[in-house]
């Protein structure tokens, strides 16, 4: 390759930064259309049962009301699941069908949609809709449903079931002197992105729709809505240029999309539907999970057996699954491993992927159990991890594509000052506060998905790259611009990125940390294709100085294509474009994961997380005063946005460890803290000093060496904090969040 890489690897400011800090970035609820009306969803007041009747009489007479849709009067909807399964992130089971019939699956389920002339009138009329129900007593606590747990579900696409047992964990455990078996629980959480779920459907006339919706991938809602409502895909465009956070909750289409689109089609006019914060608790969530981890070891710390069992909540209608226990067969070298994963049904909406689904939960349990084992052995927790360091993926019996976890442990420990830790619990103190130091390991699979992209260079030297992926705050706009600017040796100011539009080349939803590797490599390929086109054009110019040049022998820099061996022989980008007869040249490129490589190697990201907490001895208040997160995740494209990804994961991990808990009333089956005041997620005052270290890896899983960063920051964070709380207090709390009441 002839080009140098001045942008990739640097901490370049976000290219969309100025739009975001000035309020110019447009989110789903911020598009306008002439004659647009407003919708509001009416939530059910029961969690389980049937609607007997809905009384619309008062609501219909309220000012400005245009229509109220219910399951009784709605336009026709398909009477089978099949169209609804046009969802790339669907899980096994029978997908939820909004406003389909009288059946209630969870509290807050939309039973009606009010359409009115203004937002205020829609909201007011929605409050006037009443219903009578035939209610059944719901179960919303997975512990109450655990006796009905099952593992007979159809596996979810893309989620590996637990590997078969290796060795004999049960017999080894029985015969061991040094062992522990403990149960852990992580409270249910909601993603709570700052932006509310919203859809603005613009009626373009003659059945054509432009749908602006909050999504992690525009192609998914388009496919879904076209299938469910029988729309011509050529007449539907979905956009989502900016997404106000999602963390997994906007992978699947939600009911706002279907209801708003149905209303727009019926009334042949534009409709906006924004859900309320309370309604954000009527969709995907991180499932309540009961776990048991059993470990045995020799007295030198060598692990002899690992057994990990999880029971995870799902809805009545779908078998949502996460890779929760598999990590326990992967992270440490151990000959005897048994992993078991079960589901239990409760009366809630289907859970959904939330930042590091499965790993955030499963590795919390494993890493706290490892901490417990370190005290049992009288061994430094970091030494115990190093003693059992896995040099290969034992689940699949493959070498790692790269794994610099040892370096991450070392650099993280050094930055943190791990050597200052005194081994005994309750042995460190600063005034009235107990000080605790804890650590944990994180792991996430480095995934990739097929993506397409295009690159367009115009005669004025401006390059545009585009891909139908999403930037949910991860920095996609910026890293794609960096990659493209490097390919053509352009000033990044001359590069624009477009994402979040179904008019752009195909990409699946953005999630699982596959976005950067997949979209990044698609842009790389599109740029390479564009170079080929430009060279062909340059060679075809009369008396071209590059007449016989091959791609391997030219460089693209300073606005020119030049022979590497003789820089004087060159053609400007502008002249090559002019030879095309148009003002610009465009090329498309596609990227797909290298299946052969994946057959041979296992690709994972790793983290070593160190936490310092201070616990007020009298009040039980826990403060996280220092976190070091050392990350081994392949090539880092942008040190600023990459660091931000890790910071965000760590902060969400702090929430998991200490604050976050969705609470259902067990009688009503209703979330009682469905708001940001009573569902506490970390605020400014909770977050102090976080250090992020990147240990670079030379990884060959894709040509750019990218592994992805969206999930890894959260994995291990909660366990490190929980372990630090034990070190500070000597009290082992095995149910997250560790709130004051559990410490006193």
């Amino acid at each position, binding site marked *: 390759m002839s080009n140098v890489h001045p942008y990739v690897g*640097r*901490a*370049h*400011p*976000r290219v*969309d*930064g*100025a739009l*975001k*800090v*000035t*309020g*110019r*970035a*447009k*989110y789903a*609820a*911020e598009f306008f259309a002439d004659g647009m009306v*407003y919708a509001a969803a009416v939530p059910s007041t029961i969690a389980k049962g049937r609607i007997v009747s809905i009384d619309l009489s008062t609501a219909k007479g309220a*000012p400005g009301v245009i229509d109220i849709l219910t399951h009784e009067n709605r336009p026709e909807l398909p009477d089978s699941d099949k169209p609804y399964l046009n969802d790339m992130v669907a899980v096994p089971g029978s997908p939820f069908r909004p406003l389909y019939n009288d059946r209630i699956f969870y509290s807050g389920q939309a039973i009606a949609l009010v359409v009115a002339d*203004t*937002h*205020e*009138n829609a909201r*007011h009329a929605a409050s006037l809709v009443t219903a009578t129900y035939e209610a059944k007593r719901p179960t919303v606590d997975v512990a109450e449903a655990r006796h009905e747990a099952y593992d007979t579900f159809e596996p979810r696409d893309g989620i590996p079931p637990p590997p078969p047992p290796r060795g004999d964990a049960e017999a080894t455990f029985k015969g061991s002197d040094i062992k522990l078996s403990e149960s852990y629980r992580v409270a249910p959480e909601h*993603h*709570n992105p*700052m*932006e509310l779920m919203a859809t603005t459907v613009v009626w373009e006339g003659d059945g054509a729709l432009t749908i602006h919706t909050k999504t992690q991938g525009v192609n998914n809602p388009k496919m879904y809505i076209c299938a469910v409502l029988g729309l011509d895909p050529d007449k539907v465009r979905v956009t989502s240029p*900016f997404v*106000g*956070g*999602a963390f997994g909750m906007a992978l699947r289409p939600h009911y706002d999309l279907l209801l708003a689109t149905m209303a727009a089609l019926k009334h042949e006019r534009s409709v906006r539907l924004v859900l*309320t*914060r309370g309604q954000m608790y009527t969709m995907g969530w991180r499932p309540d999970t009961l776990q048991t981890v059993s470990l045995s070891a020799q007295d030198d710390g060598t692990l002899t057996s690992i057994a990990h069992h999880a029971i995870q909540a799902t809805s009545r209608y779908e078998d949502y699954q996460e890779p929760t226990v598999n990590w326990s067969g992967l992270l440490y070298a151990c000959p005897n491993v048994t992993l078991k994963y079960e589901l239990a049904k409760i009366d809630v909406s289907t859970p959904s992927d939330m930042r590091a689904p499965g790993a955030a939960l499963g590795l919390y349990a494993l890493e706290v159990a490892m901490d417990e084992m370190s005290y049992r052995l009288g061994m430094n927790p970091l030494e115990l991890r190093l003693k059992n360091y896995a040099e290969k993926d034992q689940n699949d019996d493959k070498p790692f594509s790269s794994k610099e976890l040892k370096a991450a442990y070392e650099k993280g420990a050094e930055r943190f000052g791990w050597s200052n830790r005194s081994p005994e619990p309750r042995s460190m103190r600063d005034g009235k506060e107990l000080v605790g130091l804890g650590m944990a390991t994180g792991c996430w699979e480095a995934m990739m998905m097929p993506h397409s992209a295009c690159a367009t260079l115009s005669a004025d030297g401006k390059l545009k790259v585009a891909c139908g992926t999403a930037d949910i*705050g*991860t*920095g996609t706009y910026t890293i794609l611009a960096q990659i493209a600017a490097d390919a053509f040796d352009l000033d990044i100011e001359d590069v624009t990125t477009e994402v979040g539009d179904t008019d752009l080349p195909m990409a699946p939803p953005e999630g699982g940390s596959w976005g950067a590797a997949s979209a990044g490599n698609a842009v790389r390929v599109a740029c390479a294709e564009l170079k080929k086109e430009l060279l062909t054009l340059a060679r075809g110019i009369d008396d071209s100085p590059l007449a016989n040049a091959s791609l391997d022998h030219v460089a693209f820099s300073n606005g020119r294509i030049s022979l590497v061996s003789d820089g004087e022989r060159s053609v400007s980008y502008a002249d090559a474009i002019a030879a095309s007869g148009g003002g610009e040249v465009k090329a498309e490129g596609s990227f797909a994961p290298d299946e052969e490589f994946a057959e041979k190697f296992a690709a994972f990201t790793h983290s070593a997380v160190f936490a310092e907490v201070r616990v007020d001895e009298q009040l039980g208040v826990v403060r996280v005063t220092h976190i070091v997160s050392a990350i081994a995740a392949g090539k880092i494209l942008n*040190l*600023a946005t990459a*660091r*931000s*990804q890790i*910071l*965000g*994961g*760590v*902060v*969400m991990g702090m929430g998991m460890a200490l604050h976050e808990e969705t609470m259902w009333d067990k009688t009503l089956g209703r979330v009682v803290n469905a*708001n*940001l*005041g009573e569902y506490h*997620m*970390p*605020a*400014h*005052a909770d*977050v*102090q*000093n976080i250090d992020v270290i990147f240990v670079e890896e030379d990884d060959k899983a894709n040509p750019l060496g990218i592994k992805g960063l969206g999930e890894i920051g959260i994995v291990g964070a909660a366990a490190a904090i929980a372990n630090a709380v034990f070190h500070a207090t000597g009290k082992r709390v095995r149910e997250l969040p560790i709130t004051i009441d559990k410490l006193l």
Partner: protein
Amino acid sequence: MAQDARSASEPVAVTLSVNGETHSVEIPPSATLLDVLRERLHLTGSKKGCDQGQCGACTVLVDGRRVNSCLQLAVMNDGREITTIEGLGRPEELHPLQAAFVAHDAFQCGYCTPGQICSAVGMLDEGHAHGPEEIRELMSGNLCRCGAYTNIVEAIEEVRSAREAPTLKTPKLEAAE
């Protein structure tokens, strides 16, 4: 005093002064300042994150003071000077706090960002923040689910300390490598 249902929903004429421009609108008395800014004036920089004063995404400046615009009825603000994120600076001419937010990567999805910045403007004018610890405390009404807190505090602290310095420093525009 008797009030019939009609008068409660009868539109009210209000004159709002937003970012130096005067807007005469007829709005229902129940309309919040946030909804009027977003839906009627199309100033969507002020964000709706909770609609109940718990997240701070809707923070604007009213007569220089930071307020949650979702907790204000628009009619209460007749004649007051309202500044939204759109009025603080433009992409080509950023307010020092906006520039500092970009330089410190003090946001990810960007949705809480206008509220964080408006809140920071108001907070610095209140004069109670003298360092990062006080900034953290006084900014705790502005939630950021992306977890950009440490970068936000760095950005605000940079502008705060530059203000206190005898000569005005311009925030660095490129983050350190």
